[in-house]
């Protein structure tokens, strides 16, 4: 076994890029700028200052926030005009959500959720250790703290933790269908469900070999990326998930249930999955390969794509090629 002892050395920055779809077009953050492309991706609508290492983009109806989780900078930009402001955040802003014009920022290593109002007013609340995932449902925010194993419900007004529940730690992904939170556990090969209405566990189910990420296809189908099995598993419940799990007879055990899509196999292990409309897109981080799934058949959309350099809309997959600084559209 190799044991590692820390040595302190020095380093200097390199480049990252990030891309997101918004109601006004495709936003790309790269090389310290943020650009809005029109809906066809053919023209730059505006360009504004960005951040050094754009690690993700959070989109709202009117604004976007470009997060630099490495340098702790956040660039908030008005979609209509491109006007923006850069703010320093707490340590490691990994996720954000807009409720109206207010940005809620999850600062993982600060163990905090920060609220940044439209007028720039800021407030912060403490969370459990390693808050890694943030989602919204029913006008409330939910933060899952990964090493602590805590799911916390946060009310927007007053801005405070409303309820908490201990769940298993170390989930690799958390998604919601609006009623339930679905937590993915790679090591245990399980999906656990928490009913948000009651903030109580609503069951668990075995899922593949090493499930890493999931996406939800309305009304209640789970697409689970399993890089070990090189497969996206589709789990379909006969009833709503909460009903199924609560009653303990979920037919979503793999291979059971009515699935409009079957499981999909891939030549390499996919570890991310996205669903927009009828499009199901899977991604292999290790090789940077994007796949499209149609009728359970997978095909390559693009290769050598960086993890944050693609986004999916109902009609197309968009990628950013940083070597030629070009936005590429692939129709679904």
């Amino acid at each position, binding site marked *: 076994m190799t*044991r590692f002892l820390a040595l302190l*050395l020095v380093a200097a920055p390199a480049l990252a890029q990030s891309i997101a779809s918004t109601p006004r077009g495709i936003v790309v953050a790269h090389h310290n700028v943020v650009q809005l492309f029109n809906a066809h991706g053919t023209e730059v609508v505006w360009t504004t200052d960005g951040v050094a290492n754009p690690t993700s983009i959070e989109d709202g109806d009117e604004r976007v926030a470009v997060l630099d*989780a*490495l340098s702790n900078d956040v660039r908030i930009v008005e979609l209509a005009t491109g006007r923006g402001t850069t703010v320093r955040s707490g340590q*490691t802003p990994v996720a954000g959500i807009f409720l109206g014009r207010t940005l809620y920022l999850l600062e993982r290593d*600060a163990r905090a959720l920060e609220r940044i109002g439209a007028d720039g007013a800021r407030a912060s609340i403490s969370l459990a250790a390693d808050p890694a995932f943030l989602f919204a449902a029913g006008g409330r925010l939910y933060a899952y703290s990964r090493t602590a194993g805590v799911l916390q419900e946060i009310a927007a007004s007053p801005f405070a933790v409303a309820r908490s529940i201990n769940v298993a730690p170390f989930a690799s992904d958390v998604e919601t269908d609006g009623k339930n939170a679905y937590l993915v556990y790679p090591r245990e090969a399980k999906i656990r469900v928490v009913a948000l209405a009651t903030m109580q566990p609503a069951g668990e189910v075995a899922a593949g070999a090493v499930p890493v990420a999931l996406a939800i296809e309305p009304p209640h189908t789970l697409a689970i990326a399993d890089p*070990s099995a090189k497969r996206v598993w589709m789990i379909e419940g006969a009833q709503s998930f909460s009903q199924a799990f609560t009653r303990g007879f979920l037919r979503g055990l793999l291979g059971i249930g009515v699935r409009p899509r079957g499981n999909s196999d891939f030549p390499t292990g996919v570890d991310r999955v996205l669903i927009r409309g009828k499009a199901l897109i899977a991604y292999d981080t290790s090789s940077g390969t994007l796949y499209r799934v149609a009728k359970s058949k997978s095909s390559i959309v693009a290769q050598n794509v960086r993890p944050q350099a693609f986004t999916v809309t109902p009609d197309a997959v968009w990628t950013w090629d940083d070597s030629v600084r070009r936005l590429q559209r692939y129709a679904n």
Partner: protein
Amino acid sequence: MTVGLLFGLPAAAQQSRISSDFEIQQMERQLATSKSFVAQLSARLNLGDLRLARNENALATAEYAQALDVAAHERAEARRAADMTRYATATSYAALAEAKLSHDARAFELAEEALRYASDSAKTWNLYATTMSLLRQREKAASAARNAVSIATAEAERSPAVSNRLDLAIYQYSLATFTDDEALLRAVVASLKSSAFDALKSAVVRNESFEIYSTARGEEAAYVSLLNRAQLRLAALYERRGDAAAARATYESVLAARSDDPTALAALARLGAADYAAAFDANPFSLALVRDYQRYLDRAHPPAPEESTTGARVRLALQQLHAGESRAARATLDALLAQFPNNDTLKTLRREAEERASGVPAFLTSGKTTAQPAGAELRQLLGLTLTPEQRAALDAMTLAGTATFASASTSEGRTTLDSGTIEGVPFRFAEPTIFNGTFAANTPLRLTYRILGVTGVGGADGLLLEPLRLENIQ
């Protein structure tokens, strides 16, 4: 236990050996004989760190690039084999290698990727913490180290085996390093010295383990390295808050286990508790040590080293530079560079010697034909490569200053003189010169002279002078 016993060599032979030579040799052997991922990766990372400590930056970068190749290959293989635990480990190390290569964004991306698969692994968090520290993200490093300690504490409570205790101590050391937590470091050191590790301590003695690595394979190596690093870190914290006695005692404790530890030796010299010779022998190329020694030379005048070790030769070069003997310093450094062509400390000093040599003393550009140059100006001249115009200006100048002759031979009212110092700078005449009058040795005299060139005087750089007049000072 001392290095001498471990090497089984006489003390004199050890002195010519740089402290990290042995570890480098061991890692190169490991590279040649063991082809496993862990062996190859740890060897490359250790070689990079060892080279870096010697300021051999190009070699260090090459090793880190090789480490990245090893990790990238392992990532791909693990993915093909659908082994996600292996993939996460390889990804963590790839992130670390990228960070060492200063590829910040990619390092961060990979570190985050590893956490997706292995956020339950204390080792992954510890690697993440180290990667963040390399990216100068100390708070991120501390946060990650807290997670590692939290997970490892639970594991050690579940199963208090030595391996789990050792892992926990490693992660606590990381956390203490990133938070400057003196109390935690003391606890780590006390834990390592406690009876809980008796079996490991016996094995260390039995196997005469002493090597210090940043990436340690096996429990003995990890134990020895961790105890060394934790004590050094603790001593540095003592030193920072002004507790010199505690710092000295802790550095000495490090030396009790390894007598040629370069960090401890340099610290003790800095604290005035030891001379610089051993520190330079342990690592002649530490730029921090070099700068510290240069400050020391401002207030002390140590004799020229008599030994011929690499450390002694570097000290000699520094003394020569300090004395303004740029030409001699360049010669000393050139000889060292021929032996260590990849060393950036030597290159830096050589450049500095060159820069000093290019400085023209003010009297030479005054436009006048007479001057009384100060000692510093004459020293400056010693290192200067003159342009034809400067040479012509110097030839036309008549200079004067206070000279002291080393010896004097008087006969029939005439004195024969040969060499001495002028304004503290060594000089000699082209041949012994007879002056009318009686002049004593070791007595300040007023000498009017021309400068013919630079020459060797008693083994040091000096001026070759043409005397014009000599007078007693009234």
